[in-house]
């Protein structure tokens, strides 16, 4: 397997604070995948996204794009990397300059990467990209950002990424500021891009429902550490790590047979936790054992297509590979015809 992007033992620290701790993850270059990275605020999911995008460098370890260390690329390599790995950000309001028409944000990458030979070719590319995200070019171009809804602006950002025919889109909470009723459509479009254009997608989110619906695999982070990873059906369907269990049981489902329990879960944030070099979830864990405080649990493989870093599964084998993707299910759709 050739790898598209690989994080090799990546750690990011800010002073004494560890934002992300020793994450190894590789995504295949041959079968376009959809991978979710989930966790609460401060879990390190945005740090992971920013390192994948090359915005920040790891404190330890390496991020490799097609085998090349992102931190040590030549100018030409970096240019290619910047083109082929595209971000979609959370806030569909802040990313636009209010003084420019929508066209500007779409024309800039076409010019910068000399994607088109003529004005009309550029226009055709932009129109195609807009149609791919469900927008009508004639109703969209020429408008100012304030004339569009949050959902439409987020679609423009996806269209901008699509223009460059990237190999990877890293979408950091792309729908958390969009109405629930519009989320489904935007996510469905990401899925279509994955299937039709063969773009791999890393979907950063705290919403497990949409992660389950669109992604093949998921990685759950807690305070910088991978707590569970594997096929979404496994991790979300039958979570093993107590933190994943807490996350899944907290999803507000519009299903009265799956009501939140009446019991209140303890508020962990109010009191300073016992400092612990072990499992970061120990202070909140209902199953905490003495061993959890002093030792970081290894990646156990309690069943197929998942791993869980939790001592509850200490009788299960330890994963032979550091790569959390070793527990992933291969994406089940075939690679699409290569984009122009």
């Amino acid at each position, binding site marked *: 397997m050739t790898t598209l992007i690989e994080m090799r033992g990546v750690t990011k620290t800010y002073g004494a604070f560890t934002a992300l701790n020793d994450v190894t993850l590789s995504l295949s270059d041959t079968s376009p995948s959809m991978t979710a990275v989930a966790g*609460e*605020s401060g879990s390190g999911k945005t740090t992971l996204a920013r390192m994948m995008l090359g915005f920040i460098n790891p404190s330890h370890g390496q991020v490799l794009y097609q085998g090349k260390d992102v931190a040590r690329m030549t100018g030409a390599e970096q240019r290619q990397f910047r083109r082929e790995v595209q971000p979609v950000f959370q806030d569909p309001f802040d990313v636009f300059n209010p003084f420019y028409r929508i066209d500007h944000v779409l024309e800039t990458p076409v010019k910068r990467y000399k994607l088109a030979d003529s004005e009309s070719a550029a226009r055709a590319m932009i129109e195609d990209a807009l149609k791919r995200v*469900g*927008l*009508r070019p004639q*109703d*969209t171009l020429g*408008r100012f950002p304030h*004339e*569009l*809804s*949050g*959902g*439409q602006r987020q*679609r423009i950002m996806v269209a901008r990424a699509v223009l460059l025919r990237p190999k990877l889109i890293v979408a950091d909470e792309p729908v958390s500021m969009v*109405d*629930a*009723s*519009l*989320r*489904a*459509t*935007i*996510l*469905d479009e990401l*899925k279509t891009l994955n299937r039709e254009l063969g773009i791999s997608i890393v979907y950063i989110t*705290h*919403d*497990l*429902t*949409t992660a*389950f*619906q*669109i992604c093949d695999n998921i990685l759950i982070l807690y305070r910088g550490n991978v707590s569970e990873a594997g096929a979404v059906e496994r991790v*979300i*369907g039958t979570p093993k790590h107590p933190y994943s269990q*807490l*996350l*899944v049981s*907290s*999803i*507000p*489902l*519009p*299903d*009265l047979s799956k*009501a*939140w329990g009446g019991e*209140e*879960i303890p*508020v962990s*944030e*109010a*009191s300073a936790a016992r400092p612990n070099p072990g499992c970061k979830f120990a202070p909140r864990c209902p199953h905490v054992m003495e061993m959890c405080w002093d030792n970081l649990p290894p990646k156990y493989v309690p069943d197929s297509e998942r791993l869980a870093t939790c001592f509850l599964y200490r009788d299960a084998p330890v994963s032979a590979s550091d790569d959390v993707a070793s527990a992933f299910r291969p994406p089940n759709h075939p690679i699409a015809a290569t984009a122009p």
Partner: protein
Amino acid sequence: MSVARDLKPILVVEGLNVHYDTGKGPAKAVNDVSFSLRPGERLGLIGESGSGKTTMATALMRLTRAPGRIAGGSVELDGRDILKMSTKELRETRLRDIALIPQGAMSSLNPVMRLEEQMIDAIVAHKPGMKRAELDARVQELLKNVGLAPEVARRYPHELSGGMKQRAAMAIATSLSPKVIVADEPTSALDVVVQRQVMQTLGRLQDGLGAAVVLIGHDMGLIAQFADTVGVMYAGKLVEIGPVRQMIESPKHPYTRLLVDSLPGIEVKRELTGIPGLPPPLVDLPPGCSFNPRCPLAFERCRRETPLLQQVAPGQSAACHLYPEHAALPPLPPMTRAHQELRP
């Protein structure tokens, strides 16, 4: 969360209209809305961005600001119309009888005051005679009620996490034991686990006070987990209201059905369906039912005549021309991607 059916309503909203004056005429953000709430009842008001739900929340508190104005109707709290009160009466009523947990409570706290000072400020404004020791005890009690540690009283807002700030705002809102709590998307910026904690705290506080709650939001899942009664707003109108179970299991308005269906579950993977199109601009509502351009079941009458709320099942009313001819909502035709194309 039991609601005694025989209790008389604590909050009665009748024909409420809130308009924003614009160059193109008034935008009717709340358009002839009526509902009532009994003590202890939890009403969830759900709608998309621009459906008028935040305007509704501010109008219930009579906090509407220009260019918005209350253009008619009444909001009777325990028999007294908030919209007709003198400024003095209004000041006394807010917080004591009806309190707001604002959207993004994070930014509603004063950044340069310790939390206890802000809490005391609110209490003293209503009960000037209270002694410092009593106030301190009350602050501790309120913090405990929302699950915050006593030392949090001495902190500044920037020292608190998002969930803690939301709890702090809840502590202030309940400091005078109000009869009605209006919560405007209180968890919109929080993670699922913290969201659940905050909502459970709100539920427990409310049970303790016997207060009624109006919870405003756009997430049907969250509303379903919390409310006894669900009201659906569309383009400024209340288009359906009824008991939560009926609203989720047998919604009568096509829009409610689409809202419920737009939330994917975690059991089977399925095609994701959003709601086609966008809500209409409030200054330029389509003739007839405002939802008709997006409705998969719209027929000729819908484009001509505005439907009124009518009872469609016990305790459930919908504003839709399908009734009373139909006993239940007919199945919606499957949506194609072409349906989902948006017009800006």
